[in-house]
C-alpha cells in the first residue's frame, strides 16, 4: 500500500515536471516574450533591462531552472493585462471553478450511478431505455451546444433560470448540468457494463447460494466491485472535466479559471496562461491521486499489494 502510494506520488511529480517543461518550451517557441511587454517606442535600454530580468541572456537550461524555481514559489510573473501577479488573479477565480466542478460532479454521480446500476439490474426494461437515452445524448451532444440548448429552453423560453453569470445561486444549475451530463453518461455506461459482468461472476453466484437477498447482492456484493472500473475511468478522464469547464465557463460567462484561460489566450497574456495551465495540471494530478487512494480503499488487492 505504502509503496503503491509512493509510486503514485512519484509519478504525479514526474508528470508535473514534464508539463512544466512542455510549457516552458512552448512559451519560448511562441515567440520572444519581450515583444509582449515592450512596444516600438521602447529603448535599447529597456530591452536590455527586460532581457536581464527575464533571464533571457542565460542558457536555456538555466532559464528553465529559474522558471521552475519561481513556479515552485507560486510565482509566474505578472499578468500583462491585469498588471498584478498571475497567481493572485487565479486564486480569485478558483472558488467559482471549484463550485462548478463539484456541482457537475455531483450531478454526474446522482444521475449516472443509480441509473447505471438500475439499467444493469433491470436490463431491457423502460429504465434501461431511459438510461440508454441519457447516455447517448451525453456522449454525442457537444457540451457547448448542450449548454446553449439548455439556455434556450430554460432561460429564454421558460424563463426559469438565469442564462449566464454567477449572481444567484440558481445560476449554477445550467452550467453544472451541461458540464456534468457527459460524465453522467460515462459513469452510467461503465457502471452498467461492470455491473453486468459482476452480476455474472462466480462470487455473486455463491453469495446468492448463501441466501443473500437480491438487494444485498446488488448493493453490497456487486457495487463495490463494479466501481473499480468506474474509478479507473474517473482517474484517466478528470483531465477532460477541466477541458469541459473551459467551454462551459465560456458559454455561461462563469467567472472561473476556464474563462480566465480563454481570456488569457485571447489577450496573449502568457504569464497568466502558463500559470493557469500549471494550476489545471496540478488539479488534475491531485484528483488522480485522490482516485488512486480511493482505489486502494475499495480494492484490497491494491491495499495489501
Amino acid at each position: 500500500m505504502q509503496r503503491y502510494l509512493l509510486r503514485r506520488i512519484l509519478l504525479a511529480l514526474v508528470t508535473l515536471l514534464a508539463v512544466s517543461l512542455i510549457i516552458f518550451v512552448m512559451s519560448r517557441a511562441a515567440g520572444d516574450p519581450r515583444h509582449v511587454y515592450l512596444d516600438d517606442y521602447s529603448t535599447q535600454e529597456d530591452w536590455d533591462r527586460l532581457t536581464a530580468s527575464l533571464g533571457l541572456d542565460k542558457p536555456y537550461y538555466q532559464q528553465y531552472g529559474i522558471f521552475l524555481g519561481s513556479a515552485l514559489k507560486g510565482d509566474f510573473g505578472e499578468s500583462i493585462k491585469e498588471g498584478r501577479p498571475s497567481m493572485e488573479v487565479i486564486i480569485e477565480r478558483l472558488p467559482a471553478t471549484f463550485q462548478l466542478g463539484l456541482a457537475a460532479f455531483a450531478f454526474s454521480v446522482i444521475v449516472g450511478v443509480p441509473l447505471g446500476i438500475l439499467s444493469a439490474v433491470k436490463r431491457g426494461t423502460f429504465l434501461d431505455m431511459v438510461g440508454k437515452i441519457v447516455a447517448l445524448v451525453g456522449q454525442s451532444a457537444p457540451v457547448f451546444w448542450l449548454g446553449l440548448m439548455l439556455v434556450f429552453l430554460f432561460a429564454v423560453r421558460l424563463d426559469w433560470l438565469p442564462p449566464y453569470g454567477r449572481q444567484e445561486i440558481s445560476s449554477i444549475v445550467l452550467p453544472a448540468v451541461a458540464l456534468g451530463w457527459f460524465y453522467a453518461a460515462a459513469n452510467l455506461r461503465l457502471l452498467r457494463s461492470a455491473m453486468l459482468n459482476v452480476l455474472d461472476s462466480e462470487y455473486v453466484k455463491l453469495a446468492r447460494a448463501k441466501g443473500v437477498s437480491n438487494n444485498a447482492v446488488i448493493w453490497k456484493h456487486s457495487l463495490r466491485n463494479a466501481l473499480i472500473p468506474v474509478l479507473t475511468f474517473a482517474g484517466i478522464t478528470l483531465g477532460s472535466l477541466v477541458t469541459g469547464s473551459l467551454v462551459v465557463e465560456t458559454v455561461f460567462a462563469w467567472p472561473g479559471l476556464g474563462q480566465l484561460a480563454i481570456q488569457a489566450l485571447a489577450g496573449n497574456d502568457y504569464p497568466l496562461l502558463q500559470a493557469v495551465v500549471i494550476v489545471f495540471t496540478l488539479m488534475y494530478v491531485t484528483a488522480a491521486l485522490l482516485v488512486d487512494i480511493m482505489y486502494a480503499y475499495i480494492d484490497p488487492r491494491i491495499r495489501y499489494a
Partner: protein
Amino acid sequence: MTTLDARPMADTTNEVLLEAEGLKKYFPVTKGLLISKVTGWIKAVDGVSFQIRAGETLGIVGESGCGKSTTAKMLLQLEDPTEGTIRYQGKEIQNATADERRAYRSSVQAVFQDPWSSLNPRMRVRDLIAEPMVINLNLSRREMQDRVSKLLEDVGLSSYHANLYPHEFSGGQRQRLAIARALSVEPQVIVLDEPVSALDVSIRAQIMNLLRDLQQEYNVSYLLIAHHLATVRYMCDWVAVMYLGQIVEFGPTRELFDNASHPYTKALMNAALPSHPDIEQEEMILTGEVPSPLNPPEGCRFHPRCPFVIDQCSTVVPQVRELAPGHLVSCHLY
C-alpha cells in the same frame, strides 16, 4: 552435483536424442518504485538432468509450481536456462550455429494444454498446420497442401477441414489440429504439456490413443508433462517425479509405479483417485502446501511435509540411490 541425474544407465539401446544436464531456471524477484532492483530469486527449476531417447516417452509428473512446465519451456527455447546445457544429438544448442538452431527448431515441436488458446483464431486450419513448414521447409504450394491433407487424415480429420477456422471445431478436434501442426515438420521430439487435461473425459482416451498410434507411425519421441498419474502410466516408458524444481525419483514406468519409493511419490499415488470403490488406499495425506520456491527448505526440500522425516533430512541433501536398474531415488531413507 548431488541432484538426481535422470539419465537411464539401464538397458535401452535407443539413440539419445535430447539431453538436459543440470538445467536451472531462476526468475528474479524485483522491488523498487521506479527503478527496480533484484531482491531474490525464484528457483523454478534447480538442477534437472534427463534424456529423451528415440521412439520413447519420458513423463514428468508433479504438482503445480514444481517446475515441470518451465523445464518444457527451456527445451522449447521459450526460456533461456540460467545454468545447465541442453544437447540435441550430442550438440549443445546454446552455442549452436544458426543452421543448427533451425534444425533444432524443426526437430522439437510442442502440443500445449489449452486447445482454445493454442490455435490462432484468425488463421485457417490450412495455414495453421502449414506454418512450421512455411518457416522451416522449402516446399511448393502443392506439396504443402498434400501434406496438410495427409496430416489431417492422420489425426482423424479430413482434408476438407483445411478451409475452416479453429472456432468451428470442438476441444478434442482442436487438440487433433494442434497435433497435426506439431507433426508437420516431422520432428524427432514432441513436448506434450498436459495434452489431455483440458478435454472432456470421453475425449481424453481418443487423444491418448491417437498420440500412441502416431508415435508408432512417425517414430517420434515424447516428453509428457502431466499431473495425472494414471495418464503418465498409460503413456510413458520412463517417469521422473518433480518436487520444488528438482527430480526426486526416476525410473522405468512400471518399476516406478509398482515400487514407488520416495515419500513424495508415495503421497502422490495415495492422493490420486482410485479406479474402483473397492481399492483400499493407504491413508497418507500430506499436510500443508508446497513451500515457496523463493526460499526452498534446506536439506531435502520435501522434509517439512514428509511423514517419515528423520533428523538429517533438514540439514543434509540426500544422496541418490539406485534401487533397481534405472530406478533412482533421492531420499535419506534408502
